[in-house]
């Protein structure tokens, strides 16, 4: 005969669950169950008993009606168990791969559609000057441009210092001190400035844009806009894209200037190079075409980052998982694509602005 007594609730049992389990497991199959000493029984206690009984009522059982009804509910619900997720098979793996590939094509399609819609919107606002979302554009320029100045300046300055210091060590060995201006000028203005700013802005503003649009999707704000007949691309995407395309060249200019200054500080300490000499030599060492290349890279990269951020933001589904994965995808694709396009730039402009 087996006696069950005291409180059989989740809280009461959690302290001595090991002893209870081993006690239940060692119970012989055909034993007599005495549940009269039970005080409180909740569904966890009932599930424990029902499992110990092997899913059916024992032959000899004495229990009061209240506790019997609790166990009865467990008995009823276990007759309709939860469905299990189907196991992962080879077919699922193939379908997953195919889905990923198709997903890539839908990404490309949606991205092109977004870009096309933006071009149409731009055409529309050019013909209807009253519809320019000027307030949004200016607010966005402040957010992505002005507020990004301190962090890009700090990073630019430090990179300038490090680059200059490392180069100066090598140049000193060859007695070619004056070429520090060429190295810094070409490297920073043409290459490092735009890429550095792009990486920072993709992490800073790209993620913010994706998260903002994503949350607006979750809270149905985008649907509310559509219901009012306001174009979401014209009011939400266009200002972001225009603002970043305008602010990025300016940020590139600012960051490159600070990075060059940092480079000079390091060269001054290491090689005793005067500021006047540095400024005088710079135009000779670096043809003006490099500045144009740097600025146009900035504009193109800004356009790319904003487009990608908005593309992923509009794809967010109303759950936290989708928001986080789309924000990650937005930043990673923006940085990857920027570096890819930078390589294309390098090939396309290989004969421009290199001092002979």
């Amino acid at each position, binding site marked *: 005969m087996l006696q069950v007594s005291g409180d059989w*609730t*989740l*809280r009461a*049992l*959690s302290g001595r*669950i090991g002893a209870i389990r081993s006690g239940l497991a060692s119970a012989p199959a055909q034993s007599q169950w005495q549940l009269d000493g039970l005080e409180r029984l*909740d*569904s*966890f206690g009932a*599930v*424990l008993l*029902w*499992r110990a009984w092997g899913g059916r009522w024992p032959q000899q059982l004495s229990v*009061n009606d*209240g*506790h019997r*009804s*609790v166990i009865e*509910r*467990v008995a*009823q*619900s*276990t007759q*309709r*168990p*939860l*469905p299990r*997720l189907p196991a992962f098979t080879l077919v699922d793996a193939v379908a997953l791969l195919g889905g990923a590939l198709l997903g890539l094509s839908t990404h490309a399609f949606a991205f092109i559609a977004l870009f096309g819609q933006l071009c149409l919107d731009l055409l529309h606002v050019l013909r209807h000057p009253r519809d320019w979302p000027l307030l949004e554009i200016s607010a966005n320029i402040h957010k992505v441009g002005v507020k990004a100045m301190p962090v890009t300046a700090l990073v630019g300055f430090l990179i300038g210092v490090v680059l200059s210091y490392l180069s100066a060590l090598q140049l000193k060995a060859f007695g070619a001190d004056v070429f520090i201006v060429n190295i810094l000028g070409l490297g920073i203005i043409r290459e490092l400035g735009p890429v550095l700013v792009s990486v920072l802005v993709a992490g800073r503003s790209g993620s913010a844009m994706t998260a903002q649009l994503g949350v607006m999707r979750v809270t149905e704000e985008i649907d509310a806009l559509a219901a009012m007949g306001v174009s979401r691309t014209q009011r939400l995407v266009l200002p972001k894209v225009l603002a970043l395309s305008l602010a990025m060249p300016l940020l590139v200019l600012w960051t490159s200037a600070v990075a060059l200054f940092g480079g000079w500080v390091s060269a001054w300490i290491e090689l005793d190079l005067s500021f006047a000499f540095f400024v005088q030599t710079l135009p000779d060492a670096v043809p003006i075409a490099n500045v144009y290349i740097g600025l146009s890279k900035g504009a193109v990269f800004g356009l790319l980052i904003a487009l990608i951020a908005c593309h992923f933001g509009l794809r967010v*589904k*109303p*759950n*936290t*998982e989708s928001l986080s994965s789309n924000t990650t995808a937005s930043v990673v694709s923006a940085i990857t694509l920027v570096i890819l396009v930078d390589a294309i730039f390098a090939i396309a402009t290989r004969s421009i602005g290199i001092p002979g």
Partner: protein
Amino acid sequence: MSITPAPAPVVSLQGIVTRFGRNLVHDGVDLDIMGGEIVALVGGSGSGKTTLLRHIIGLTEPAAGTVKLFGEGLRAGSSRERIARQRRFGVLFQQGALFSAFSVGENIGFPIKELGVATAEEIRDLVALKLAMVEMEPEHALLMPAELSGGMVKRAALARALSLEPELLLLDEPTAGLDPDRSAAFVRLILSLRKQLGLTVVLVTHDLDTIAAMASKVAVLADRKILSYAALAETMQVEHPFIERFFHGEHGRRALARAKGKD
């Protein structure tokens, strides 16, 4: 089955004062809720009903006054005792607050899993049981919260609130956003659960039909205090502009007549 009399009130609020900036929301709120009651907390919008509920849960702290649950101060004892106390009540948030990254089944099983007592198979049985309790199908366990209708979200959230076998259930607007049919079903559900599990229920609501159908007592929050705390019939005798508007308006009279007709 004998229920041992609980001498201490399940929820005890004393002299609660809440300020939001310059705005004084509560100015000395006193309320004692005994075990086994279903208390409806009513009041105009902005009167701080939800804030009071959040004080009871311990999400916010009043500027002054004490909150006691099960006879103990909300922040009394070691952190272990505090957590143990928190597991004695279940909360249904206004929007359901289901974890959107989990399926319905995982949502309901999550608190039990956190406890680390039950095995995976036992959790499956318990989830099936809780789903049956709130009249949902076992198949719904695999759905994601985003795929549920408003009423289903409420029921799934209630199942999650019930998963730790709470003694106290706190409901924030349980029937808001449900059609009358569904909210009547929800009321039946809560009443049957209380009968089965001997729960104490505190609910914040605007819905007179719900109050008339299930509340054993009504706490009226007005003028920054508890204006009255009594059964519905007595509450309606109190003379106050808010009670006049709330219970004696056109809608109020119809709701009460409906509830009487049912009895």
